[in-house]
């Protein structure tokens, strides 16, 4: 699969990975309970949390310079995260976050 999803229900949520799922120990979907925090859960902070808690190995294939690496699209509820502020977007309850690997084969 080419997508990993985190979707949030209340304080918990889920992540799904796409192509990216190879980095996530082959899991396509995560139901995640984010720890409560003083700082808002921006996607920037979420990426850090994912790196520390979900990525199995070679995190540089997913994260580069505090953002996702080129070739991965981040979707918030089926919309490109750039429409919502990208790294600065604050994750809301019930949001579904997907990471999509762009495909190039044909």
């Amino acid at each position, binding site marked *: 699969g080419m997508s990993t999803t985190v979707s949030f229900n209340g304080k918990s949520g889920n992540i799904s990975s796409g192509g990216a799922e190879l980095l996530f120990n082959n899991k396509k979907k995560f139901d995640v309970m984010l720890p409560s925090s003083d700082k808002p859960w921006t996607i920037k902070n979420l990426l850090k949390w994912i790196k520390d808690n979900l990525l199995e190995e070679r995190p540089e294939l997913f994260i580069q310079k505090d953002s996702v690496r080129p070739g*991965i699209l981040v979707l918030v509820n089926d919309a490109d995260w750039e429409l919502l502020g990208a790294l600065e977007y604050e994750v809301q309850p019930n949001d579904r976050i997907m990471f999509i690997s762009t495909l190039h084969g044909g």
Partner: protein
Amino acid sequence: PENLCSQLSKEDVARYSRQLILPDFGVGGQQKLKKASVLIVGAGGLGCPAAIYLAAAGVGTIGVVDYDSVELSNLHRQILHKEHGVGTPKSLSIILAVSSLNSSVKCVSHHVLLKSNNAEEVISQYDIIIDATDNVASRYLLNDACVLLKKPLISGSALRFEGQLTVYNFDGGPCYRCIHPSPPPPETVTNCSDGGVLGVVPGTIGCLQALEAIKIAAGLGSSFSGKLLLFDGKEGSFRKITLRSKQKTCSLCGDNPVISKLIDYEQFCGASPTDKTETLHL
């Protein structure tokens, strides 16, 4: 307008009768198709279905670009080639198949490796471009050439059980560089030779590329400008994503573009467009 029927022959009317009675298509749509020219870059898993459905529908001129020859390992997904055609150029193989279905379509085989020094010459001859390639360098090359030459680019891709489809540089929508300003690290890119692909997955995406080309050519617009279709064949799921709009900061199509001619895409991507096949030993 004056005698809209004039350009369709009696044979055209018989052949395309099921399209001529289509609401929102009709004689006008058919005539627009007949006048249109579509270039398919890549005569592989995406290019085969795209070519045959464009020819069937009556697109006037179809060009096919590919520099490879048919291999046995192509035939599980590249359905216009033939077993006895292994070793012949793919672009020619497609042209032969297309002509036997519809000899009234003008077919042009471009047996070249599209690069910075020849892409514009080929692309400038066509109205609509279909990206049916299989590598990152070719995708940036096509995108840049299409923006510079103001052509819509219908992009498809497939790997394993999954496919993606979007239309770039059309109707005020974004280009490939708006979405992907930087190329992916080469070690993160998987092609069909290494990752495998179920043939009917590019088959489905190639059909949808043909559909969008037909709609654009017939003046019906496209459903995938600024949208990305994610198809998961194993799940049988289709998801349509809203992409960012055209970016003012895009280095190619933005307000202050820094790219005004084609560049060296192998260097830019750190990888070449050749997709060499390794033999599989089991």
